[in-house]
């Protein structure tokens, strides 16, 4: 059973039960009160009639030598006739012998008659359709042999009780019906937020994490709804983050597979060519050159991939490193390519000590300088600067080469992205260099800003937020 149904049902049960108990008590109390009033009124009347009867017997006593049945009867008949209209019946006994009675109903027993001199009895008894109140007592001296019985039809009292009860049953039914309607409406309205919540949780369970509940009430449910929305929000963000991470990983793998395909196709193809073809010397050299350069490309890619995979937080080793030494080492590595392209590296290192991982710094510089060399035309120069600005260590590498268009700058950090695919893959670039640099910066709490103008040059600025040493 639904909550609202339970609420409606229990409220109605409690209401009907309560109303019935109250009504039962009230009806009984009222009946008892009425009975007392009516019975005492009857008793007064009995007493009054008895007294009048005594007087009228006394006033006529002179006419008779002795009391006999006939004259007693003539005394009581006027009363009896008079009271019969009020549904009151009278009886008179002498020495337990009946003198007069206008009560025509037969009774099983008449326990009220068993009384001694000076006693009085009052008993209510049913007879046929009606209930009667019997009040019996002896007359006062000198007529104490006479027993007077007053019988009153009190069915009215019973009828009244029954009527009231019936009436009440109808009223309570109608009231329960009206109440049910009102309560159903009320409870339905009150539980609406719960239904909204149920719907929203159902939607979220189905994977619609953007679902929220629209409840503005200030009560507990409103509070619950607000908390629920906050929870749904954080679930949504987390799910989004997770799926973004997964998507990014997937994209990386897809790109990797794609990037490997060209060198693999080329190496396989030229290998086949050398195996099957009737080639010229010129073709042979070309094929071999391609096999070598494409293998180099794969080699390059795998090294960069290893670098990328290798830089994990637990593996890096921070220390005070000297940037000038690292720059020199990288220069030595690149010496051949620098002379080949007639390029010169100009260094202005104002600040050299840095809290960083020496290995990763070398890798960072190597990648940035490789890019700069590739972009530069022979005879140019590349500037490497380091200085402190706003108490932050800044490393800056500028070239005066081909530069990049505005929309390219956004994309070059993406793994495998290369501006000029054909040209840069001939240079052995896999498009992983800047992605690697970005990772290294992340680990060093540094940011990498790239600014570039087409045909003017490129400047890469790395700002270390947390690498100033307190030497």
């Amino acid at each position, binding site marked *: 059973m639904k909550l609202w149904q339970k609420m409606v049902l229990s409220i109605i049960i409690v209401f009907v039960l309560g109303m019935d108990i109250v009504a039962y008590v009230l009806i009984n109390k009222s009946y008892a009160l009425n009975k007392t009033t009516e019975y005492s009124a009857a008793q007064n009347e009995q007493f009054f009639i008895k007294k009048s009867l005594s007087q009228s017997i006394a006033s006529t006593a002179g006419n008779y030598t002795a009391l006999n049945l006939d004259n007693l009867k003539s005394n009581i008949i006027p009363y009896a006739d008079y009271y019969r209209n009020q549904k009151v019946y009278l009886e008179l006994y002498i020495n337990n012998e009946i003198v007069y009675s206008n009560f025509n109903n037969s009774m099983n027993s008449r326990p009220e008659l068993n009384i001694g001199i000076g006693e009085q009895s009052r008993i209510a008894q049913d007879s046929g359709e009606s209930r009667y109140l019997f009040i019996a007592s002896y007359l006062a001296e000198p007529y104490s042999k006479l027993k007077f019985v007053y019988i009153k039809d009190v069915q009215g009292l019973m009828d009244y009780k029954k009527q009231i009860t019936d009436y009440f049953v109808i009223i309570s039914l109608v009231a329960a019906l009206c109440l049910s309607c009102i309560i159903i409406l009320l409870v339905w309205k009150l539980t609406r937020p719960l239904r909204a919540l149920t719907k929203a949780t159902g939607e979220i369970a189905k994977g619609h994490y953007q679902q929220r509940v629209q409840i503005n009430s200030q009560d507990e449910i409103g509070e619950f709804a607000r908390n629920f929305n906050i929870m749904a929000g954080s679930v949504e963000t987390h799910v989004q983050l997770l799926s973004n991470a997964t998507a990014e990983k997937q994209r990386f793998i*897809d790109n990797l*597979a*794609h990037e490997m*395909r*060209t*060198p*693999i*196709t*080329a190496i*396989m*193809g*030229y290998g*086949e*060519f050398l*195996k*099957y*073809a*009737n*080639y*010229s010397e010129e*073709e042979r050299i*070309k*094929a071999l050159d*391609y096999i070598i*350069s*494409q293998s180099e490309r794969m080699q390059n890619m795998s090294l960069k991939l290893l670098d990328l995979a290798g830089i994990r937080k637990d593996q890096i080793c921070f220390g005070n490193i000297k940037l000038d030494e690292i720059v020199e080492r990288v220069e030595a590595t690149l010496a051949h390519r620098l002379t080949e392209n007639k390029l010169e590296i100009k260094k202005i290192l104002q600040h050299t000590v840095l809290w960083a991982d020496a290995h990763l710094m070398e890798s960072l510089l190597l990648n940035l300088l490789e890019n700069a060399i590739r972009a530069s035309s022979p005879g140019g120069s590349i500037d490497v600067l380091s200085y402190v600005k706003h108490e932050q260590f800044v490393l800056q590498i500028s070239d005066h080469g081909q530069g990049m268009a505005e929309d390219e700058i956004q994309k070059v950090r993406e793994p495998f992205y290369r501006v000029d*695919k*054909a040209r840069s*893959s*001939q240079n052995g670039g896999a498009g992983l260099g800047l992605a690697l640099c970005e990772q290294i910066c992340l680990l060093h709490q540094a940011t990498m800003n790239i600014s570039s103008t087409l045909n003017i040059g490129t400047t890469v600025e790395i700002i270390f937020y947390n690498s100033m040493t307190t030497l």
Partner: protein
Amino acid sequence: MANILIVEDEMAIADLIAMNLKLVGHATTQIDDGNEVMAAIQATTPDLIILDVMLPNKDGFELMKEIAPLGVPVIFLTAKDQLDDKIMGLRSGADDYIVKPFAIIELITRIETVLKRYQVHSSIFRLEQLEVRLDEHVVLLNDEQVDLTTKEFSLLTLLIANQNLALSREKLLSLVWGVEFMGETRTIDVHIQKLRKKLSLEDRIKTVYKVGYRLEVR
């Protein structure tokens, strides 16, 4: 000999295709930019286009829409992870597709098939005193007809289509006799021997050590 346009932005691959096509006697033009394709078609009127799906500036499918009305046959060059693209490529009007990485023989076979369908392959092959009328199944040596069995002629056709490229015995066997003869490579040796003698191609049909046979035309 057909005139083939190669549209591929990876120079290593473009050169690879060009070198192989040159080997079997086709002329090639190379283009590495999607935007230059239409102009190149105008300039060179190719018999067939080999089109890479992923191209800078304009991808293969976009280009296909422009090429389709010209009626030039197209073979798509796709990657394995673009399998859905394959279907799309064929729907957009390409004649065939080939998946990277591909084997040279496979590429050449497909090109041959498409060219045959468009009837742009040369029907006469001449080499010194030898003339082979491929459509008529007629072989002339010094203007005299030479009788060849059906199998011998099929073998000759294959060697001509893949001239300058060595074909393995297994390949020849499966292409001429069908797969059920796999393993009986001796048959090939016998037939090659007969071809060499009948057409005096002893110097031209070379045995390539550990590989197979090659018809050398250069």
